[in-house]
C-alpha cells in the first residue's frame, strides 16, 4: 500500500468512517460548502476610517506613507524619496509602471539582485493589517518585493479594502490565479538576537507607500 493510502486509511479509521478510506466523491455537503462558498468569520472592527486605519497600521510597522494627487506625481515622489534618504544605485520598476516618465535610468522586469531600490504597483492594501497585497506575474514579478533594500509601492486609494477576505474575494473573481500573493506588512525584520527588532533581515530595509488619490 502506498504511504498516501496508508495515511488516508488511518485518518478515516481514526474518524470511525464505516465505509473505510474515503474517496473524493464521498465529500459531504458541509465540506463542499466550505470549499465552494467560504464564509466570513468575525472580523475586527476598524477603529477609524479605512484610510486612517491603513496609514496608522502601516506606520506602526515602519512603513512611510505619502499621499499623491495623481499617478503623474509618482516619478517625482520617487526621486524625492531617494534623494531624501541618500539612496543611489540601480532602480528596478515593475513592468506595470514602465510607462511612467522616469527621469532616471530604470530596469523593468524581475529583480536582478543588484538593484538598491524597486518601485512596484500592487493590487490591494488591507486597512485591518496595514498590508500591501502584491501578486506575482509578468507585470509584477515577486522578486521585486524581496530582493532590493528599498521597496517603494504605488497604491491607489480605490485599491484599499477593509479586511483580508476582500483580497481573497477579488482573487476568486479573476479567471486565472497568480502563483503567489504576498501580503507585505512593513520592512523585513528579525527579533532573533535577544528578541530585539532589527530591520532589513533579508528583504527590504525600507518600505515607502505612495498613496494615489482617486481610481
Amino acid at each position, binding site marked *: 500500500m*502506498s*504511504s498516501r493510502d*496508508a*495515511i*488516508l486509511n488511518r*485518518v478515516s479509521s*481514526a*474518524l470511525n*468512517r464505516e465505509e473505510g*478510506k474515503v*474517496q*473524493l466523491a*464521498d465529500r*459531504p455537503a*458541509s*465540506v463542499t460548502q*466550505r*470549499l465552494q462558498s467560504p464564509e*466570513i*468569520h*468575525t*472580523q*475586527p*472592527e476598524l477603529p477609524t476610517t479605512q484610510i486612517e486605519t491603513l496609514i496608522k*497600521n502601516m506606520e*506602526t*510597522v515602519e512603513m512611510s506613507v505619502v499621499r499623491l494627487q495623481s499617478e503623474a506625481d509618482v516619478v517625482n515622489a520617487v526621486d524625492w524619496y531617494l534623494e531624501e534618504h541618500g539612496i543611489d544605485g540601480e532602480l528596478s520598476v515593475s513592468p506595470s509602471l514602465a510607462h511612467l516618465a522616469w527621469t532616471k535610468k530604470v530596469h523593468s522586469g524581475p529583480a536582478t539582485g543588484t538593484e538598491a531600490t524597486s518601485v512596484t504597483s500592487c493590487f490591494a492594501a488591507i486597512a485591518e*493589517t*496595514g*498590508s500591501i497585497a502584491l501578486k506575482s*506575474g*509578468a507585470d509584477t*514579478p*515577486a*522578486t521585486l518585493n*524581496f*530582493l532590493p533594500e528599498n521597496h517603494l509601492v504605488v497604491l491607489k486609494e480605490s485599491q484599499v479594502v477593509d479586511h483580508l*477576505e476582500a483580497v*481573497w474575494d477579488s482573487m476568486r473573481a479573476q479567471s*486565472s*490565479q*497568480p*502563483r*503567489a500573493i*504576498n501580503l507585505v*506588512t*512593513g*520592512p*523585513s*525584520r*528579525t*527579533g*532573533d*538576537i*535577544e528578541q*530585539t527588532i*532589527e530591520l532589513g*533581515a*533579508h*528583504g527590504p530595509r525600507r518600505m515607502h507607500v505612495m498613496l494615489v488619490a482617486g481610481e
Partner: protein
Amino acid sequence: MKAQSLQFKRNASDALHDENLKLAMSFAKTGFIGKRAAAVAAVPQWQTIRDEARELKNHVLDNLDHYLLAYEEAVIRNGGTVHWAQDGEEAAKIIVDLCTQANAKTVAKGKSMVGEEASINEALEEAGIEPIETDLGEYIIQLAKEPPSHIIAPAVHKTKEQVSELFHEHHQQYGRQEKITDRAALVHEARVILREKFRHADVGITGANFLVAETGQHVLVTNEGNGDLSSILPRTQIVIAGIEKVVPNLNDASCLLRMLARSATGQHFSNYTSVMGGPKKAEDTDGPDAFHVVLVDNHRTDMLAGDLKEMLRCFRCGACMNHCPVYGAVGGHAYGWVYPGPMGSVLTPVMVGIEKAPDLPHACTLNGRCAEVCPMSIPLPSLLRRHRQTTFEKQLQSAHSRYGLKVWAFFAKRPIVYRTLTGLSVRFLKLIGGRRGYLKRLPLAGGWTKGRNLPVPQHAQTFMALYRKQQS
C-alpha cells in the same frame, strides 16, 4: 533529531546553572508576554475569533481525509506534486530524492518544525547536499550545531555575545576577519552572507503555516522574508507540512492568521504573509520551475484517533512556552527534542514514544497559564494528565515516586488509619523543628530543603484532633 528527552532531569538541572541561558531567557520573558497581552487586548472580538477558530479546526479534524483529498486535487491542478510521508524518516527520504533529482548542491531552508521532526538537515548532509538555514535564528543555531530551543525564536537561548562569537568563528572563511558586536551589524552580516547562498541554492525548502484546500496553495508567514526568498529563487520549491495544517479556504486561514502573529510575537500581523502554490506560470518571469509538497503524518493520525486529538489544533504559535514558567526556567533544550514547552510535552511523547520522554508530562505544575493563552483553546494541562495516566499505567515513573504514591493512596483511602498517621507526623515534625518554625533539612525531603526551608506544622496536633477536642 534524536530525542534526548530521557535526560530531562539532568538537562534541566544543567540549564538551571547556565548563566547565559538565564540572561537570554530574561529577554524573551519581557519581550513576548507583554507584547502579546497588548496585542490581544487591542482586539475586542478576540474571544469570539478564538471560539470560531476552535470550531473551524474541529471541523477540519472531523473531515481531515476529505480536506486532504481536496488539497491534493488542487495542488495537482496547479501543476504541483504531492508526496505523502508516514513518518519523519520517509519525509527525509522523499526530500533527499527530490533534491538529488534536481541535482542540488545546496538547499535554502526556511524554518520548518516538521523539517526538524524529519531531521532533514542530517539527511541532506549525508547525501552530500548542503542545507542552509535562512531564518536568522535557525542560521545561528545551525552554526552552533544545536537544535532550536523555541519554535518561533529558535536561538532564543543565545545572547548577543554568543552570536557575535559564532559569526566571528564561521564568517572568517568569507573574508570577514573583524569581530562585530553591534546587533544591527550582526544582522547585516548574516544578510550579506545568506544572500549569496540564496542566489546559488538549487532547491528551496520551507514549512507551511496553512495548506488551503480551496486553492491548493499554502500560507507561509515570516518576518524576515527568508521563506519567500527560499520559495522564489531556487529552481525547485519543496514544502513540508504536517497533515493537520490543512484548512478549508482562505477565509478560514484569515481567521487563524488574526490570532497567529498576535499570539506568537505580539505583532498584529507578521511582515510577510504569502499565499503560494504551484510552479511559475507560463507568463511569469520569476518563481520556481517545479513545486512539491510533502505531507507528513508522523503519529498525527494516532492523535486523531485517541484522546489527544485536540492537540492537532495547535498552529505552533509558541504562546504556551512563552508563558510557561518551567520553560522559562530551563529553556527549550532541556526538553530534548524538537518541540519544547507545554505543547512539546504533549507532542514529544506521542512522536518519539512516551518511554523515551516519561518526564515531560510530569515536569509541569499544571498551573494552566498555557491553556489560558493558547489561541486554539487546547487544554494542555488535561492532555498532560492523560500522558501521566499512560506513564502510570506503563509504570514509567521512578520506583521512588510510584511507591510514595502507593503508600499515600493506601492511607488516603482509609480515614481512620490516615488520622493516626497524620497525628504522628505532625508530632514528629513539630518535635524536630518547632522552635524555629521551619526545618532546614529533612530526610526524604532533600530536594525541597536544598533551596528552601520546610515549614513545620503550627501545632503538634492536626486540625482534626484539635477540632474533636474542642467539640467534646
